[in-house]
């Protein structure tokens, strides 16, 4: 880089003698050598006037001068560069006390043509035992889009890295298969666009818009639930893509079979491809995530601190990031590494307080969920539709709220504690074999 500056400076001295002063200051000031590649010098110029004029009038002069200094130089190209880089210094000077609040304007972090955020790539995707399967499948899709796993369906709870992973697929397909047109959108956007198109009689344009892409990545497809019209349109789109071997990638917060109000024909199509779960990161992966994130901000965390953080924040990568940010901020503020105690205090503030749930709440929620009368839970009735919710309630009270067996029995209409133990064991056993029940319970837990 320094060589470039020197080379151009000495060339400028010679050129200055060869051209008039006015010409020199108009056309040559503000130019600089961008790079040199295989004997070609790329000269950065501020605008197209300068580019055209240098080429027309001074090309041979510049080239001759440059060759005199370095005989490897064969040719010269002009590139229009943004003047933004030069103005950074000016920016600092001009921070004035304006009493009007300025708008929190943020740059678009997405590419307008494909909607992808260029920051999501595989390089900064941390792979651990919990997500290596999803990662490997994604890599395969990048290699052979449209043929390997089509559609690719990735599901998992919020903050497990679904969006990162599917956007990374898009970004890498773009670099490895330049002719493929990729488009990323959320199912919500798809839905609202479809609705708008219908309203303004542009359904045909809407169809054509999406059919021109080679890869469609759709985030959060659970929003389709219960929207029959969108599902129908989506179904057609899906078929067109699948028939012509174009890649479809989806993410969702649950397995397609458990998206309520999703038509069977769509479910079965999702199932035809590859369905992968992104579970919560395991302990080691959480440690790895914390380490990488803190290193990215130049803060080294001691092992005990990492250990503590990884064990106290269990579910969500986003929360891990938030804690790292808080620690980084505090470290910079105090200008020294934080102690374990300080970190503990920080985490106490940044994790959400657990809600207090009463036994009554659970009973009400579960009976609502299964659509049974709340009173019948307390009754002695042994109707099948009441028995199941009753057992689920007992299971949840024991498993999640750690209520003792006798007091569960007492609260649920004076039952014997052995009845409760039996129900608990029954549900616990059934969960392992019955995915429907498992999904129901996880939905109930999400609502608590």
């Amino acid at each position, binding site marked *: 880089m320094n060589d470039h500056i020197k080379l151009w400076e000495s060339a400028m001295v010679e050129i200055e003698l060869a051209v*008039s002063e*006015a*010409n020199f*200051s*108009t056309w040559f000031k503000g130019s600089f050598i961008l790079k040199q590649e295989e004997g070609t010098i790329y000269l950065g110029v501020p*605008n*197209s*006037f*300068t*580019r*055209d*004029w240098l080429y*027309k009038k001074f090309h041979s002069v510049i080239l001759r001068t440059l060759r005199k200094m370095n005989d490897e130089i064969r040719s010269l190209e002009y590139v*229009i560069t*943004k*003047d*933004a880089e030069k*103005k950074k210094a*000016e*920016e600092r000077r*001009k921070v004035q006390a*304006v*009493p*009007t*609040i*300025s*708008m*929190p*304007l*943020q*740059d*678009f972090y997405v590419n*307008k043509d494909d909607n992808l955020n260029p920051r999501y790539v595989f390089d900064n995707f941390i792979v651990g035992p919990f997500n290596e399967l999803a990662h490997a499948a994604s890599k395969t899709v990048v290699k052979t889009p449209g043929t390997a796993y089509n559609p690719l369906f990735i599901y998992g709870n919020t903050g497990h890295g679904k969006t990162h992973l599917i956007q990374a697929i898009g970004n890498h397909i773009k670099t490895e298969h330049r002719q493929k047109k990729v488009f990323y959108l959320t199912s919500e956007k798809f839905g609202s666009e479809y609705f708008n198109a219908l309203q*303004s009689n542009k359904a045909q344009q809407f169809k054509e818009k999406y059919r021109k892409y080679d890869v469609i990545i759709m985030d959060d497809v659970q929003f389709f639930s219960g929207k029959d019209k969108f599902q129908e349109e989506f179904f057609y789109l899906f078929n067109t893509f699948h028939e012509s071997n174009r890649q479809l990638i989806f993410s969702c917060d649950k397995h397609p079979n458990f998206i309520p109000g999703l038509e069977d024909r769509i479910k079965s199509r999702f199932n035809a491809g590859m369905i992968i779960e992104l579970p919560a990161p395991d302990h080691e992966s959480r440690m790895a995530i914390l380490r990488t994130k803190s290193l990215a901000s130049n803060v080294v965390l001691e092992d005990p601190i990492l250990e503590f953080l990884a064990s106290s924040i269990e579910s969500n990568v986003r929360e891990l990031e938030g804690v790292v940010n808080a620690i980084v901020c505090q470290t910079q503020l105090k200008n020294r590494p934080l102690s374990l105690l300080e970190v503990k205090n920080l985490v106490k503030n940044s994790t959400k307080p657990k809600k207090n749930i009463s036994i009554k709440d659970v009973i009400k929620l579960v009976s609502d969920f299964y659509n049974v009368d709340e009173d019948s839970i307390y009754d002695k009735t042994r109707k099948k539709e009441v028995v199941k919710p009753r057992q689920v309630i007992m299971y949840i009270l024991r498993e999640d709220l750690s209520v003792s067996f006798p007091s569960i029995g007492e609260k649920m209409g004076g039952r014997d504690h052995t009845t409760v133990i039996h129900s608990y064991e029954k549900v616990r056993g059934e969960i392992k074999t019955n995915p429907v029940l498992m999904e129901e319970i996880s939905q109930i837990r999400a609502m608590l």
Partner: protein
Amino acid sequence: MRIECAQGKLREAVGLAERISGKHMTLPVLSCLLLEAEKNNTLTIRATNLDLGIEISIPAKVEDPGVVAVPGQTLASFVGSIPDGDRGVKIELQQGNVRVSAPRSSGVIKTLPHDDFPTLPRVENGSNFSLNASDFVRGLKAVWYSSSISSIKPELSSVYVYCEDEFVVFVATDSFRLAEKKVKIKKSGDFGMILIPHKNIPEILRVLENVSGEVAVELDKNQISFSYNGVYLVSRVVDGVFPDYKQIIPKQSVTEAVLLKHDLVNALKISNIFSDKFNQINIKIIPEAKVCEIKTKNSDVGENLTALDAVVTGEAVDINFNYKYIIDCFQSIDSDSVNLIFNGMHKPLVISPVSDNTFRYIVMPMNR
């Protein structure tokens, strides 16, 4: 060089081109107009300030072709003040000077060497489309005053133009206020987005204002050109990305007030007398009294309070603004009444004309 051309055409062309020629440039020839007479009976007038360039061709009787660079201001003032008449103006080169002669007056103007006069860049491999010039002008005019004067962020010192369905949307902001105008423009073909530098807008407006009907546009990464009827105008465009402005537009509202535009403008003009060096005004909306109070105070001058009748829904508001930012937007509002939407302390105010959803103006409050 020896030519003769119609006075009206020449005056118009020289007038347009002269505004674009460079002022205070290190290269003196840039303050000149280049007159080029060609055998096919056209006179081409070219001017540039290296940011904008224009080329205007007018019909002329060319007796002897040639090229000459004449100081723009001198030529424009002279051609502009020749007494009106339908007769032609003769331009000829005599020993390095240009003689401009009309029936009743003539002048001799010194010229400069024309070899140093740059060529205008042409847009290569860009996208082509045409659009209705007066609609385009309307859109630019409605927002361009809001863009930033400082050159620190080139994206903000430009007007952002993009297509959205059948509308073309114009946006400008200096991060303290933002104007957005949607115009339905008849156009052949869509374009992605354009960032036109703020300082080129007055000249672009002046040129396009004369056009009735379509103008052909060519656009590439570095420049945009407009051509119609012998005129070719080329401007630099900013190669950057405009910030995601939609996320700052408030989605809901805490207080809404509808006022007569005339009342509000008058009150703001009064504020001009009493406001302090920060141009601070205090706006207070009182829902019970259905009143909007505008108060200004300057410890050196005095203070003033204007109460305006308003139709108010929502909570009471008490908030400070720089009145200059507010008063600016009324040049783009034609309706009789305006809608002010407040969102509480430290949150932006949205001003829009009542019953016109193509224009929105957003102002940030002062933080005290």
